[in-house]
């Protein structure tokens, strides 16, 4: 039984699974139910000026019969009065003193407004704050959320204002709707953030109805962009976490958010530098009980790996994440088909034939049976065949001996030639 507790930027939590600031953390009733189900913490749905929501605000993107491969929303911050939220935070914290409650905040970019809300919220006993610089819809039109979060100066300044009065740790939640997330992450660190969290949702349009030609969802025949999340965004979120984690100037803990659906996703985020994870879509899809397997699966994984603590995972894969120019140009793998396991669907053959390097042959054995074979001398090790193969273990990518390692950067240095961009100018 491993120790699942984390200490995230000074915030203690019984396990690394927090509910992200979103509809599941809208009320004391919900957060208390979540804690009872086993969630380690909750980031209370963003507190701020009362706003009005629209009816019809979520949409799912389904893929090949799998529902909610992605999820889209046009919902805004809390629509409940601040006093009510504060009362419920107080009650919830009293009932669950060992669970983590973070207050998500969003106000206009004015110093006194940040001071006021931080003080009022801190008074009810939260464990920390998360500044919402990510919400891409609605609030952004009023200069808040992503409108602030896309401007590094505003991120830095507002973080500073919050830090001026906060006694508990301040996490800055970043928007992915930006070219280089490390720029705003750095700004948050410059502003004094104790931690950063990412990603908020990505600008998206879930779909268009083929019969009515309305957007999905639509509000009385009109639609607007929403925020995308769920399993589909995980690779984008993981990259942003990794980019920040490997950047030495962003030396604060990272809370990983974006498509975390089970313990495996959580482990990946933690290996790539996240000190904990936040979950929303998976809970909205399946209910709070999904955390049970997250905790249990993580525990079993740690035991299998002989690790005593979940914190031992954090950042273990970060040194393995680098730039293309640091990859070994001489490294070589080839596909090898295990004819015992292969079921002869020939998907690898046609994928390679039509869209890759034409190196998987369909052959007939003496006994009349069909089999597939890779002619390895032409295989570039692109992995496509093993990706389309529906059977685990039917195609292995085999590492084969090659020349001494040499990266692009080393090669450039060795041949002392300007990089191609410059030589073209010449």
């Amino acid at each position, binding site marked *: 039984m491993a120790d699942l507790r984390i200490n995230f930027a000074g915030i203690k939590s019984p396990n690394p699974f927090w509910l992200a600031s979103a509809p599941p953390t809208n009320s004391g009733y919900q957060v208390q139910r979540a804690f009872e189900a086993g969630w380690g913490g909750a980031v209370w749905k963003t507190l701020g000026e009362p706003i009005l929501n629209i009816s019809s605000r979520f949409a799912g993107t389904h893929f090949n019969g799998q529902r909610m491969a992605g999820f889209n929303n046009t919902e805004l911050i809390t629509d409940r009065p601040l006093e009510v939220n504060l009362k419920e935070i107080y009650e919830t914290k009293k009932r669950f003193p060992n669970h983590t409650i973070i207050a998500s905040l969003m106000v206009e970019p004015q110093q006194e407004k940040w001071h006021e809300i931080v003080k009022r919220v801190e008074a009810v006993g939260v464990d920390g704050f998360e500044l919402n610089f990510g919400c891409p819809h609605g609030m952004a039109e009023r200069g808040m959320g992503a409108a602030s979060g896309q401007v590094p100066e505003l991120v830095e300044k507002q973080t500073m204002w919050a830090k001026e009065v906060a006694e508990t740790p301040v996490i800055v939640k970043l928007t992915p709707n930006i070219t280089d997330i490390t720029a705003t992450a750095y700004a948050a660190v410059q502003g004094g953030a104790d931690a950063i969290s990412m990603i908020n949702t990505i600008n998206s349009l879930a779909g268009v109805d083929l019969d009515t030609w309305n957007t999905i969802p639509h509000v009385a025949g009109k639609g607007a962009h929403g925020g995308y999340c769920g399993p589909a965004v995980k690779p984008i979120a993981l990259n942003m976490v990794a980019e920040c984690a490997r950047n030495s100037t962003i030396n604060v803990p990272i809370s990983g958010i974006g498509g975390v659906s089970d313990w495996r996703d959580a482990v990946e985020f933690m290996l790539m530098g996240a000190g904990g994870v936040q979950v929303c879509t998976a809970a909205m899809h399946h209910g709070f009980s999904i955390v049970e397997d997250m905790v249990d699966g993580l525990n079993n994984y740690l035991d299998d790996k002989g690790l005593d603590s979940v914190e031992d995972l954090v950042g273990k894969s970060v040194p393995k994440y680098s730039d293309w120019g640091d990859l070994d140009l001489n490294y070589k793998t080839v596909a090898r088909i295990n004819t015992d396991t292969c079921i*002869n669907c020939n998907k690898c053959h046609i994928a390679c034939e039509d869209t890759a390097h034409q190196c998987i042959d369909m052959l007939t054995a003496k006994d009349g049976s069909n089999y597939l074979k890779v002619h390895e001398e032409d295989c570039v090790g692109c992995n496509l065949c093993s990706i389309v193969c529906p059977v685990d273990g039917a195609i292995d990518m085999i590492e084969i001996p090659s020349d001494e390692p040499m990266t692009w950067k080393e090669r450039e240095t060795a041949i002392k030639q300007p990089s191609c961009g410059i030589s073209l100018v010449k």
Partner: protein
Amino acid sequence: MNRFKDKTTSLKDLSLNFNEIEPDLSPKEAMDESNRCLYCYDAPCITACPTDINIPSFIKKIASGNMKGSAKVIMDANPVGASCARVCPTEDLCEGACVLNDASLPIMIGNLQRHATNWAIKNNEQLFEAGEDNGKTVAIVGGGPAGLSAARELARLGFNVTIFEAKEKAGGLDTFGIVSFRLPQEVSLWEVEQVENLGVEIRTNTMIGRDISVSDIESAYDAIVLAVGLSKVPMLGIEGENANGVHDAINFVETTKTPPLREDFIGKKVAIIGAGNTAIDAATCSVRLGASDVKMLYRRTEAEMTAYEFEYEFAKQENVEFRWLTQPMKILTDSEGKVNALECIRMELGEADVSGRRRPSPVKDSAFTIEVDAVIKAIGQSRFVDLIEEFDLSHDRGIVTIDSDTHQTSNPKVFAAGDVIFGNGQGEAMVVEAAEQGKLTAYSIYKELIGENATVNA
């Protein structure tokens, strides 16, 4: 995989027993199942289908919601694809070849095919168009699967086609010979309608050799397709065969295909002689007509029976009793000439005969009698030898000899397809085989009369 939801039979309203037993897939089931298909390249299911339906293609189209496209892929390759979705031995053909047999469970190809064609039936879609008139005429003798298939392709190729059908409706075996709870008649009639809508004339109640002479047909058309199938069940050659209560299985099944259903089987004891698919149909129809005791008598054993595995399983579920190694010797009657018992003798298997099956022979002093109210004969079907001879075609005991590439008979103007050529290594007695033969015959006629290879635009 057994999805039969209602296993009870009704005695109040027998017609309920003849509703299709296997429900259509729900849209969700169809979506789940179609998404499970791997969309194999050079898929073995296609190779295993006698009509080469592009199965991964039609399944992908279900998954993408392109139902019309899906139905067209099926019906393009197989003009009786809706019937075949119900009657094909899929576990031996497409589903048997599915690569997922080794990995999990094969795709329910038959059920998906039924789902797609049901959509076309419900939406009253005309899937194909007639080709530009090429001025040539073809007569098709027999409106069963082979004849319809040939007619459909010939019409698309621009021929003027007339089908001569002896019965009151076309469709042959699909319309009259397959039990309603497997294949409702309206499915087969929809396929007939698809062909008629291409401008094919179907002259029903018209028997060649009786209503129109063979020579008239020969002189009036540029080509003839003989697709008359098979005839009645042959005589057993035992005493009492003409008694009241002895039925021909083909005729018997036919009586259950059109209302009203007979009520004289309720509570009766029925013996079926034979163990092929038609015998099973006769047995299960008897059960569904309310018979209380249904036995199948077969002179060989379970191992030699020719019924499909799924038919056999179905009969067992219907409480049909199987009596192996049992040969009927004599049908006994009461004073009014009505069947009341069957005298049988036990058999044993000896050496293998020419067909490779062990030859049954009677066990001495083993005669016994069983009480029955009806006897149904299902020991195969005889052939239309007279008609074949009227056309002056070479044949072997009623199996018309053809050039296997062109389906041309010894009379260059006459082509043959379907059960009329089944036997002697010429195909298998399956609806799907007949459909393929009909297609090939159409292409061969095109080659013969137009001089080019046929191409049909879907």
